[in-house]
């Protein structure tokens, strides 16, 4: 089981979705959570504060989730950060593009608490094995 104290950044332009993800994470035992409303703000936070996990939407103003992911993967200090995408984008080319950009997981909205839990565990397992 992963450390429940890890700091998680939730990135989504809709406050409702951030709240829902935050509540679900709380339910799963993760309480150390911060939020960002787009990729640009997220990147700023990631560069100035320490986070162990990122959960991001795709379609956002200023900087979208894919660009955020690509920027994180190309940064020497952030590239190992796990990034889970939770998005309404359901085209196959989206999923492939996210995977190729190095997404740690991909969840399509609408999603369930069970799905989030499963994906998180899968990512933590992979991290532990690596």
């Amino acid at each position: 089981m992963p450390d429940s104290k890890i700091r998680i950044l939730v990135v989504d332009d809709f406050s409702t979705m951030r709240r829902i993800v935050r509540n679900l994470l709380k339910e799963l035992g993760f309480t150390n959570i911060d939020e960002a409303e787009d990729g640009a703000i997220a990147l700023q936070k990631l560069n100035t504060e320490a986070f162990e996990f990122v959960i991001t939407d795709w379609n956002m103003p200023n900087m979208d989730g894919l660009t955020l992911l690509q920027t994180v993967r190309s940064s020497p200090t952030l590239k190992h950060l796990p990034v889970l995408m939770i998005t309404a984008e359901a085209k196959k080319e989206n999923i492939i593009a996210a995977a190729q950009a190095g997404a740690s997981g991909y969840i399509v909205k609408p999603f369930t608490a069970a799905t989030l839990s499963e994906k998180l565990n899968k990512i933590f397992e992979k991290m532990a094995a690596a």
Partner: protein
Amino acid sequence: MADNDSPDLEALFDSVAASVHAAASSPAPVAPSPVASPEAGDGNGLQAFFDTVVAEARPGVKIAPSAPVAGDTGEGGDWPSQENVFNRIGQMARQLHTTLRELGYDNILENTVSALPDAKDRLAYVANLTEQAACRVLNATDVAQPMMEALEEAAKSLGARWDKVFANQMTTAEFKRLAEETRAYLNGGLSEKASVVNAQLMEIMMAQDFQDLTGQVIKKIVALAQDLENGLMSALLEVVPQSKRSEVPGLMNGPVVNAEGRSDVVVNQQQVDDLLDSLGF
């Protein structure tokens, strides 16, 4: 989601406009504008515009310098080809104009264009109501959840102590205290918290009242969008022959509203996982 519509429409216009240019083998920025410009809905404006285009296209009429023509190599250039171009533009404008009139699209377009600002307000209203509802529900769960957690915890702890009673592991004094605490739990904590949670459930139910209001507004906007789309699309298809409409590819399309018959989208998480598995991710 609504944001996607206007760039899409714009892209469609661009692609259609491009094929019009290609068909006329000369940049003719005036041709598509009756459709694209908001004034197009106005019957009189369209008539006036049409008249000017036809007048300009007429041979012998001096072309205004504000109408640039590519391919014109200088003063007194190749007049027959220029004439040809202007004739074609004139014909297209007439065709568009006639089509719009005949099919009644000029009225539809006029009505829909004038209804657009109203539609924006309506959509803002929908966004507002749904956001409020979401907040009300989340606030209610924020209040109710700790209550339920406290009740669950107290019930568990009392239950465990009652188990001890039944296992004969409790002194009389302890039993007395347990009985009192259980009574207090049943009379005070439980019913009190249950009524608070009940009130929050009611709040969650009442927060759904937006559905009725937004539903009505959305239906009106859908009808408006359909009118606008039908009018514009039919007019464009009438006027632009054999045009190749290429879909603008993009990675930010938002939720898939109708996945039926589409093989390029996934419909559930299982399909996402299968796709990623099949690619070895």
